[in-house]
């Protein structure tokens, strides 16, 4: 496993460590609450993810994933709260079929999906554990392959330059991704087709038709990983692959990412709640499972608080981003993720014509680095104030690129001059990469050379935002995260406990709820922790 450790610059903002500690305390309480809530629940997607860990792949004749068909049967039987794994393991044990064949047999009615008799319980558990540990073996292999790649090829200097491909056609995406790699990209993210987060299944197969993005499927993950492995060899540098563990299938996406050696995944329940109107109970529950999977598979997660500034004003609402980063950090740590796996989101979204905006953006970016010194952070470019003026856009993005190097960001998403217009054309990314690389080189040690005037605009701004974040975090702690979302504390958007999509897929766990993956995840996470300790 590789670690995204950057040299941290000397702190420059004179932030009060006590206030930071109090923010962490409040966020810790919020997170504990969420954790408690999620611990008592499962969801259809968690159960489907469990089946995927246990080796079920593929779809039925109509391309409906077998995992959906199987879990739906369990739901129909009213047994979701017990989980699906034991019943499925029992079916495998009885039939002697491979997991996927067993699933197909169940779907076709050739095999029953009924929980084991009390006396078969232990045998079913054994089978379940065996299948899950086969999944774990694949994940371990993926982790090892990644480590070896990085040891052999390295992955270039920080910040890691991150671009998206989004043609809708996975074949076209692979070529575009390779072009990006050659132009200097270090992370390539495949953006999903617009509606995918609302789908309660993961589509099957290689796909060539998507809108505003390409469907995330296991086959597409594999195709893209292969292409990027080739590109990595070509450019002599490991190129990471990113996708989304987000939306209604968050747990399954994380699982597929773990199995198919993705390296980075966007993962943030708050994003789904606020921007996709996904039910909060559902997605916060799903998130715990997904983050544990990411922790286990050495994935970096990217969180989505940068998005708040697309609906709220970046100057006024900067503290909401910081507060959310604290919450996301605590939730992630609870799930076993290590700080170096946290690409906490933030963004440069201020009106470029605002006086001293550059100073405030520097303050915000520098603050994030100082408060989360061991996390790579994910720094998003200006998007909201981008216009159809591509020439102006190049300038806005150049300023962003400079703030990024100056403040030592870890993951740097590239701004595109055509942001306000379309998903990027093939050369848009190359031009953006060139700008970012030029600026990283030209300003390489700027961060080392610059200090801010004590008590000046930059320091004052940072302290201000931190103070407001503390107030907000304490309010959220008092209301609870669910309450805070209901009262519109983030992104100026209000969501209710029972509103949004996907609540029907949540079940309070029965007394005897069990699945083998939780155990396997504990093991993998412990192994990872040992490695870090070494």
């Amino acid at each position, binding site marked *: 496993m590789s670690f995204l450790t950057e040299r941290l610059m000397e702190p420059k903002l004179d932030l009060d460590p006590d206030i930071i500690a109090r923010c962490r305390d409040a966020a810790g309480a919020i997170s504990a609450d969420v954790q408690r809530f999620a611990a008592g629940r499962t969801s259809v997607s968690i159960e489907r993810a469990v089946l995927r860990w246990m080796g079920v792949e593929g779809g039925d004749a109509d391309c409906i994933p077998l995992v959906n068909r199987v879990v739906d049967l369990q739901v129909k039987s009213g047994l979701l709260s017990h989980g699906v794994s034991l019943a499925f393991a029992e079916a495998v044990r009885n039939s002697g079929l491979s997991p996927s064949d067993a699933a197909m047999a169940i779907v076709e009615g050739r095999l029953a999906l009924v929980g084991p008799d009390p006396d078969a319980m232990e045998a079913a558990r054994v089978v379940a554990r065996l299948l899950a540990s086969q999944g774990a073996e694949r994940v371990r292999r993926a982790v090892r392959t990644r480590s070896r790649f990085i040891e052999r090829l390295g992955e270039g200097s920080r910040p890691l330059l991150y671009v998206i491909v989004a043609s809708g056609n996975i074949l076209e995406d692979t070529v575009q991704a390779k072009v990006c790699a050659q132009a200097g990209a270090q992370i390539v993210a495949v953006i999903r087709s617009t*509606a995918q987060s609302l789908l309660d299944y993961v589509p099957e197969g290689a796909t060539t038709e998507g809108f505003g993005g390409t469907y995330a499927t296991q086959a597409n993950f594999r195709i893209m990983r292969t292409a990027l492995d080739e590109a990595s060899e070509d450019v002599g540098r490991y190129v990471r692959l990113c996708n989304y563990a987000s939306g209604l299938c968050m747990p399954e996406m994380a699982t597929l990412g773990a199995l198919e050696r993705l390296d980075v995944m966007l993962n943030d329940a708050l994003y789904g709640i606020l921007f996709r109107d996904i039910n909060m109970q559902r997605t916060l529950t799903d998130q715990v499972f997904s983050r544990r999977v990411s922790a286990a598979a050495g994935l970096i997660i990217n969180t989505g608080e940068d998005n708040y500034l697309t609906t709220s004003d970046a100057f006024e609402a900067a503290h909401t981003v910081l507060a959310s980063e604290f919450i996301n950090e605590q939730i992630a740590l609870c799930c076993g993720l290590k700080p170096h796996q946290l690409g906490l989101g933030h963004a440069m979204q201020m009106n470029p014509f605002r006086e001293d905006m550059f100073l405030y953006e520097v303050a915000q970016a520098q603050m994030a680095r100082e408060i989360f010194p061991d996390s790579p952070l994910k720094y998003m470019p200006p998007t909201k104030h981008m216009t159809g003026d591509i020439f102006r856009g190049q300038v806005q993005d150049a300023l962003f690129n400079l703030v990024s190097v100056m403040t030592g960001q870890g993951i740097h998403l590239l701004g595109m001059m055509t942001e306000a217009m379309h998903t990027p054309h093939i050369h848009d990314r190359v031009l953006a990469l060139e700008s970012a690389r030029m600026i990283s080189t030209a300003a390489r040690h700027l961060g080392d050379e610059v200090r801010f005037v004590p008590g000046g605009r930059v320091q004052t701004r940072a302290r201000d935002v931190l103070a407001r974040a503390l107030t907000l975090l304490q309010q959220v702690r008092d209301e609870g995260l669910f309450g805070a979302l209901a009262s519109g504390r983030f992104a100026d958007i209000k969501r209710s406990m029972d509103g949004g999509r996907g609540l029907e897929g949540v079940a309070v766990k029965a007394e005897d709820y069990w699945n083998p993956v939780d155990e396997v995840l504990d093991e993998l996470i412990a192994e990872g922790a040992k490695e870090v300790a070494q």
Partner: protein
Amino acid sequence: MKRDEPASRILSGVDLHKVGPYGDTLGDGLVQVSFSLPVPSGPESREAARRLAVQMGLEEPQIYKEADLGYGFSFWIIYGKCRHNVDVTRIVVPKLEAVQLSFDEINDLVAAEAGRRLRIVGACTGTDAHTVGIDAILNMKGFAGEYGLERYPAFEVFNLGSQVSNDILLQKVRDLKADAVLVSQVVTQKDVHLGNLAELVDMIEAESLRKDVLLVCGGPRISHEVALELGFDAGFGAGTTPRLVADWIAREWVRRKVLPA
């Protein structure tokens, strides 16, 4: 020689019957073009890029940047002298009338002519989750210093939010007896928005509701012309301010009351 005096008067050379691009000399026709080609760079593709420019009507195309992007692609920046021109005097554009009424005038007009609040149903439809635009028009807070429609006593606004399917929208239009339907579409890749908007028109017509509602759409890639083609009554593009929409709804509603189609 004032700021708003057309170049034609200043240079006394611009022939409005033959308007073409201007670089630094009247008539030079200078145009900048950039594109990628799915062939590697090199002498042959350079010639191909040049020929494309020529086909576009650019004389003496100058290739200023040629970059091999790898994996069989190349990128080109070209300047050339465009030999096309347009007779501006003959252009007639269907367009929305400029705003004429103030906040108060709009409210007064509706009060006088309708004697009730007009019911407005708004939504960002299909899988589109971009609510900032429609919210800018509808929410109290408004946009660019102007109040949104919710602030007008003249309107009763139902903002259904994002990702609303046409089914549900139609249902609401019926239930709420909407006077106007405002649809936002921001994601336009592969023209998803066109299908989605056209479907709504069909559904509304199928329900024989067409003449009861004003059908309005908006979004950064929407224009009034496109809206009309799709069977809407009006379309509003990038930078639309709420009063422009309020004014159009109020006056159009009154116009239709007075002289029904």
